């Protein structure tokens, strides 16, 4: 059964077709959602893909959070629907207040585009359900502002509630607590900097991203 997964497109988003293709590979039916329309069209899950929404002007995600579609995404999230933000999508979710913290410039002040090793830190998220904690995944990052930062109080909460979903094996960018991905308190909204859709075939170096996208597909069926 092909579950319908919305893929949000802002002006400047550039990973929507990669995400759509990877979703199709695991059996989902991707539905592109234009940022200017305040609806998620009754999809079963929403992905905010990577890119440079609104040119990343001001800060990544700072203007995208005010796009009409974000009200619909927030309502969908509030109703318990699974929402995943990848890279720029993660930045949009933090700016929108759907996830805590922020992404700041990488410690080395470099744009970083390379595969990194990740370890699953929680299996209680729509992206990691059924993936054992400790599982290693090799998935590329591709960003300038990828260093996760948050207040100490928030970090304490994330740790206590096991809301860090993915950690870097070797921290590439200065993220606090090696954080590569987190979820919200309700555990249905997830943000991660690495791009699962870019690890969707051994031919391009790794198919580990499909592990996460398959989990997303089955999370919706539950």
């Amino acid at each position, binding site marked *: 059964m092909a579950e319908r997964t919305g893929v949000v497109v802002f002006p400047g988003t550039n990973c929507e077709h990669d995400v759509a293709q990877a979703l199709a590979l695991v059996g989902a039916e991707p539905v592109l959602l234009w940022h200017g329309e305040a609806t998620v069209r009754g999809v079963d899950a929403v992905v905010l893909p990577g890119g440079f929404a609104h040119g990343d002007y001001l*800060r990544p995600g700072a203007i995208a959070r005010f796009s009409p579609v974000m009200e619909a995404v927030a309502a969908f999230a509030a109703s318990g629907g699974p929402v995943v933000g990848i890279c720029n999508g993660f930045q949009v979710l933090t700016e929108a207040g759907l996830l*805590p913290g*922020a992404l*700041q410039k990488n*410690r080395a*002040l470099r744009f970083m585009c390379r595969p990194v090793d990740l370890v699953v830190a929680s299996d209680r998220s729509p992206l990691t359900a059924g993936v054992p904690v400790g599982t290693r995944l090799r998935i590329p990052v591709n960003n300038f502002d990828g*260093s996760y*930062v*948050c*207040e100490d109080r928030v970090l304490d909460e994330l740790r206590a509630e096991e809301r860090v979903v993915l950690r870097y094996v070797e921290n590439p960018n200065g993220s606090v607590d090696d954080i590569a991905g987190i979820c919200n308190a309700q555990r249905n909204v997830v943000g991660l900097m690495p791009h699962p859709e870019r690890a969707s075939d051994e031919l391009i170096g790794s198919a580990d991203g499909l592990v996460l996208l398959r989990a997303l597909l089955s999370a919706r069926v539950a």
Partner: protein
Amino acid sequence: MRFDAHVEVRLRAGIADPESATIERALPALGFDDVSAMTTGRSFRFAIEAATEEAAAERAHELACRLLANPVMEDVSATVEPARA
């Protein structure tokens, strides 16, 4: 009444600031051994219509907090003055 607003956005204390650190590391080679505590930020200037200077300052601060800065990692300061003709 029209006011000129100036908003400055800076990284909050305690947030890693690699850009400022890099600038500071370049200073000794230029002979600026006497400089420290470098910070960088962004500056925004705009005009704003309001009944009073207080109201203009409040609007400028609201805009700064809602859009220009991310309060998780940045501080803002907003000042206004009557527009120069």
